[in-house]
């Protein structure tokens, strides 16, 4: 199994992405079941890899049988398999929402089996790209997967039509600039070391003279990936994109896209380039930008009246927290960053599925329009409440534990950046309290605003959000609680791989 699974993890979604539209075109029938089955199979592969890595250690896999540093290698350790499980798991929920929940969404109006098949193919392509980024050990290959995932994402964002095409175009500009910056940086690295393999790079870099070229390379790579990871102040593309993306895709893109780029930052800056002087400086700058992002994202989230836009700004705050952890680089900080990736992905996915569903049913996007919805769909909104509380950081939801780890890491780090991150994280919880409790107050305690059309016609109000969306929402809420309660085993499994990984690279350095 270990010999096949890594390749399968990337090949399966890639093949599926080509196969599904073809199937839809030929059969002219809905492809929801094959799509869902594919996603479940990918998740199964990811879980099997996770288990296999936990039991038998990291796996190195040579694509096409060409070993590194000449061929392209995949590298699966606790860290990457965790990300793979996160990505493929969220994809299952998104695929379910895409298959059953989007009937009333603006995206699917006048949709045909072929159009649906193409969108499902795009989701699979996005998954393929993200899993590729997670698994690859080759810096150029990472660029290719980055662009694959981005192209698929632009398509999904634009599938809402109208405003979402503008958002998609602006996202495309930002994403392509990010990719080109990254590629430019890779070019410098290749010129300096003559290799593209991450392990090879890490072992050769220490013998490279630290000069301007190396600094430029590190900065270009960091800036490029930071744009994708929405690090403040490079976050400009994020709010519109998240707000105008149709629901099933929004739940997925908001949950994992930026995080996979943060993962790539962690791999490259925290592991491969960690030994370089420029890398250390960039990481420290990243802490400060993370602090700024945590605060700015929170403040601007408070300023929003529209629920989805508020969620988008809250994501910028969350990415700031994750990148603080990446920047600090201690075991505690990395645990916190990883944990927050998981916690925030689950919670933000849950909230975007919910908010998108409400919006799709004509519930509107303004906080006022959410008034009284809790009484009409108690289970769904209880689940959304759990997600919101997790983001505020109320125990025992998962978000509390990521904040706990990051706060501990800040104290352990000490110094001005430690104090600043500590204060920023506490402040972000308070801001999150303000903006989420405003929504929760409306949902649970305020009387519903009369919808003019329904009130006059006397029709009973329909469901608050498309019924099938309740499943991902409630399912994710349960996962949030489980992740919180079983925090320790998670940490025990993922961290050792990271530590041996960085230790190995440190040991290889002459």
């Amino acid at each position, binding site marked *: 199994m270990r010999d096949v699974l890594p390749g399968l993890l990337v090949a399966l979604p890639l093949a599926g992405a080509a196969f599904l539209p073809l199937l839809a075109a030929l059969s002219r029938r809905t492809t929801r079941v094959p799509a869902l089955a594919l996603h479940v199979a990918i998740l199964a592969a990811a879980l099997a890899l996770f288990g296999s890595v936990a039991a038998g250690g990291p796996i190195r896999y040579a694509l096409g049988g060409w070993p590194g540093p000449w061929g392209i290698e995949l590298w699966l350790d606790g860290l990457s398999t965790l990300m793979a499980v996160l990505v493929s798991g969220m994809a299952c929920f998104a695929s379910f929402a895409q298959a059953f929940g989007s009937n009333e969404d603006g995206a699917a109006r006048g949709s045909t089996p072929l159009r649906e098949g193409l969108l499902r193919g795009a989701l699979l392509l996005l998954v393929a790209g993200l899993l590729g980024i997670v698994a690859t050990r080759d810096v150029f290959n990472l660029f290719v997967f980055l662009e694959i995932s981005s192209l698929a994402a632009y398509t999904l964002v634009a599938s809402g039509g109208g405003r979402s095409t503008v958002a998609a175009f602006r996202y495309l500009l930002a994403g392509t600039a990010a990719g080109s910056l990254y590629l430019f940086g890779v070019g410098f690295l290749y010129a300096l070391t003559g290799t593209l393999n991450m392990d090879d790079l890490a072992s050769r870099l220490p013998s490279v003279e630290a000069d301007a070229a190396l600094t430029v390379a590190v900065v270009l790579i960091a800036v490029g990936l930071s744009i994708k990871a929405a690090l403040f102040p490079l976050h400009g593309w994020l709010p519109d994109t998240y707000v105008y993306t149709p629901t099933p895709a929004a739940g997925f893109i908001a949950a994992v896209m930026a995080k996979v780029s943060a993962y790539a930052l962690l791999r490259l800056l925290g592991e491969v380039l960690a030994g370089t002087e420029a890398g250390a400086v960039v990481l420290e700058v990243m802490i400060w930008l993370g602090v700024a992002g945590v605060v700015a994202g929170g403040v601007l989230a408070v300023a929003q009246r529209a629920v989805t836009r508020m969620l988008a700004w809250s994501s910028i705050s969350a990415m700031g927290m994750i990148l603080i952890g990446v920047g600090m680089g201690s075991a505690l900080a990395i645990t916190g960053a990883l944990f927050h990736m998981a916690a925030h992905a689950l919670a933000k996915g849950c909230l975007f599925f919910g908010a998108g569903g409400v919006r799709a049913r004509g519930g509107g996007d303004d906080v006022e329009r959410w008034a009284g919805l809790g009484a009409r769909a108690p289970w769904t909104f209880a689940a959304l409440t759990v997600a919101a509380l997790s983001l505020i*950081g109320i*125990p*025992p939801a998962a978000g509390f534990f990521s904040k706990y780890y990051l706060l501990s890491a800040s104290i*352990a780090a000490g110094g001005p950046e430690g104090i600043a991150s500590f204060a920023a994280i*506490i402040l972000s*919880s308070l801001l999150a309290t303000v903006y989420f409790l405003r929504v929760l107050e409306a949902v649970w*305690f305020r009387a519903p605003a009369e919808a003019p059309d329904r009130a006059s016609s006397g029709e009973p109000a329909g469901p608050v959000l498309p019924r099938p969306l309740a499943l991902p929402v409630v399912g994710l809420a349960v996962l949030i609680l489980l992740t919180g*309660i079983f925090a*320790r085993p998670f940490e025990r499994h993922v961290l050792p791989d990271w530590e041996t990984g960085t230790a190995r690279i440190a040991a290889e350095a002459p």
Partner: protein
Amino acid sequence: MTEIVSLRPLLAVGAGLAAVLPILLSGRRPALREGWTFLAGAVQLGAALSMLPAALAGAAHVSPALPLLPGMPLQFRADPLGLLFLTLSSILWLATSSYSVGYLRSLGLKHQTGYFAAFAAAVAAAAGVALAANLLTFLIAYEVLTLTTWPLVVHKRTSGVFGSGRSYLAYTLIAGQLLLGAVVWVGMLAPGAQFTPGGFLAGAASDGVLRVLFVLLLVGVGSKAAVFPLHGWLPAAMVAPTPVSALLHAVAVVKAGAFGVLRLTGWVFGPDLMHDLGLSLPLALLAAGTILMASLRALGEDHFKRRLAYSTVSQLSYIVLGGAIGTPLALAGAAFHIVAHGFLKITLFFCAGSVYAATGREHISQLSGLGRAMPFTFAAFAVGALGMAGMPLLPGFISKWNLALGALDDHQVWVVALLVVSGLLNLAYYLPILRIAVFEPGDDRRVREPSPWLVAPPVFAALAAIVLGLAPDAGARFWFLAESAARSVAEHAPEFLTGGLP
């Protein structure tokens, strides 16, 4: 202390939590719904009492530890202080539940199902605060307590009420975040952060860091204990229905804060470290200031429940004061005051609620003549009021007497003067209520006692208070628990602090 690993602490915490779902699901059948509440209350009380024999024998029931964070498990331990708070809140929960039934029905309030569900969750959280074995568990229970109380505060759902709800959350959640920061910090300095009699932080960090930590922790727990200047939310929260004010804002929530202060001074820092850091006197002065300030505010307050709320602010600081002084008798007095104030204040709130249910009146100046129309209610009120002022033979006297003795052990004579002055102030703001109710002629002759559901609980609480005043160690052995909690702290304290212990 011997530890017995058992599931009973979990049962005590889980009973209320487990009742939430059945209560929500049986919303259409009020009798069944309230049956769940009573069942959960009985289970919680049963679990509390079943752990008493072990405590009497000097042992403690400890739940299995669920690993949550490195070295910081989720764990519950029924030590004497925790057991005291747990037993108190389960007894008073049962009383409040029967009162709630009468109150909600006679006023025909809406959203009763959500009310009972949130109530059960809040009491479970208070039980969690009581039995928390370490700071992490305490923090978790504390935050859950904050959130589950919010729906109860905004129960009336008018715009003014939402304002009060927001101010309640602003105080408690901000404090909760500071507490989180402090808990993380303590966790880094002293892995595990397990409550230890006599404290565990001595020598863990420099004096400056420890002082900063103390302030953070104090703000965290002190805001719920309504210590000046963090008391503003409590009078505002009186917009809640009276049973909520009675149990949560006289017992569960504010007591969780005062209990937290005791844990902080006795079990995290410890009296000797507090003395070394020079924190005892400032904290005692803060408590003294709160006592006087709140008493004066109570004098000028005409709103019945808000006067009671200011009285609560003042009385809670007795507990803080005891924790600050830190001598065994002062600690025992403070711990016992949790119980004494619980029974007395809930009596007073029940009476205020009965008046509101029977007449719709909320202000003291409107009470004229009601004493004769509602004799049982105002008899109970008299017991509560006199007990608050510290009249001998009532439990308030026992706590204050021990506080005074404990302060003298530490040569803090001013505390005795403070206790006398505040006792007089208590009389000054409680007796006028009785005078207006009993001696001023009423204008409405149709007023009668409300339904027995509303009369029985205050009378029961007043009788229980009298029993407690005569025999503080009867029944649930509250005095024993208070004293052995104080003794456990003192055993770890240096010689000069152990004076007065037999």
